[in-house]
């Protein structure tokens, strides 16, 4: 198979949970979106948990192969994984959106909704300037001003 270009490598075979994932996560933070990280890890706990956690943060496992007792993973760095609470439910966004972009992402029109960000109702004029960050709590309320 045509293997992607590898931008960084990491050997986490000496480590145990949660350091295995922490090192992978720290390495991924240094890369750019689309970059490929090669990780060598052990079977058992590491191969069970690391890929799952990596996916949970919005990255992609491009390849996984077994080499003897060890495993080799290729991870494509995903967009900036943004964890928010949307109307009380956990939601994972692939990047940091402005309020306006988020509204459009849900195929809504900005003048149909009222946005409550971390307990504060936003003025419509600010929708383009405010960026939704990880940890934010967003309530998307229909203001009933449908035209």
């Amino acid at each position, binding site marked *: 198979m045509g293997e992607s270009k590898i931008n960084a490598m990491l050997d986490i075979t000496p480590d145990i949970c949660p350091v295995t994932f922490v090192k992978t*996560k720290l390495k991924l933070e240094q890369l750019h979106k689309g970059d490929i990280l090669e990780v060598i890890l052990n079977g058992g706990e590491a191969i069970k948990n690391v890929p799952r956690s990596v996916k949970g943060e919005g990255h992609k496992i491009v390849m996984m192969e077994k080499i003897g007792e060890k495993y080799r993973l290729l991870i494509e760095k995903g967009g900036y994984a943004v964890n928010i609470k949307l109307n009380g439910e956990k939601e994972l966004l692939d990047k940091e959106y402005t309020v306006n972009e988020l509204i459009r992402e849900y195929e809504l029109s900005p003048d149909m909704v009222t946005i409550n960000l971390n307990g504060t109702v936003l003025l419509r004029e600010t929708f383009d300037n405010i960026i939704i*960050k*990880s*940890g934010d709590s967003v309530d998307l309320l229909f203001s009933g001003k449908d035209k």
Partner: protein
Amino acid sequence: MDFSEEQIIRYSRQIVLPEVGGIGQKRINEGRVLIIGTGGLGSPAAYYLVAAGVGTIGIIDYDVVDLSNLQRQILHTTKDIGRLKVDSAKEKLIALNPDCNIVSYHERLTAQNIKEIINDYDVIVDGADNFATRFMANDACVMANKIFFHGGVLGFTGQTFTIVPGKGPCLRCVLREPPPPVSVPTCSQTGVLGVLAGTIGLIQATEVLKYLLGKGDLLVGRLIAYDALDMRFREIRVKKDPDCPVCGDNPTITGPDDYELAGICRTEKERGS
């Protein structure tokens, strides 16, 4: 992110959190926090902030460790009785995490030194043992535009909220004046169940970490009133007062000389550490 192997392991349980990561850990490591007092509130707050890796912690306390402190001031132990609280505290904090730079001030916080001391820090934690110091710190923080994490405990109750100058109310908006000395409880009325200081001090520390991380919703404009007997946290909406003498439209307290510090005896401790 250039963390040492030791740091990666030490902070692994928080770096794994999506809200923290290497970027957040770096922000914590670069944080500069002043804790006023190493008593009931300051002890748990300092201990956990140092554990989390806050890079620089200032501690200011004039007192020495007394046997009666040990019921709640968990940084000090029986063998520390008679030692300076700042020395005893610093020893425990460095033992916990040698990564942290602990700056100790063995002095009282006064109108003369407060401005210069708080200037070196991003945020200030209220662990004061008297109303006068607490109000003076509130005023100085508002004037210096520093975030002040208020906390207080008495009996089975505690209260806390976060003061972000310009964003929400300050302590004077809510309480207006330190109570006159006669109404400040006497020694027999200053009982507190030690764990209360832990609960409130750690809410303050939590707020500090959230602030450093830039995550979540700070306790601004909302005061948490905790009643341990009912085991209830009530949230009280508190508003910025346009007539507030410090942060209002026409402030009358504008400099350190305006603090009224006389009149409160130090033995008349209240809602404090």
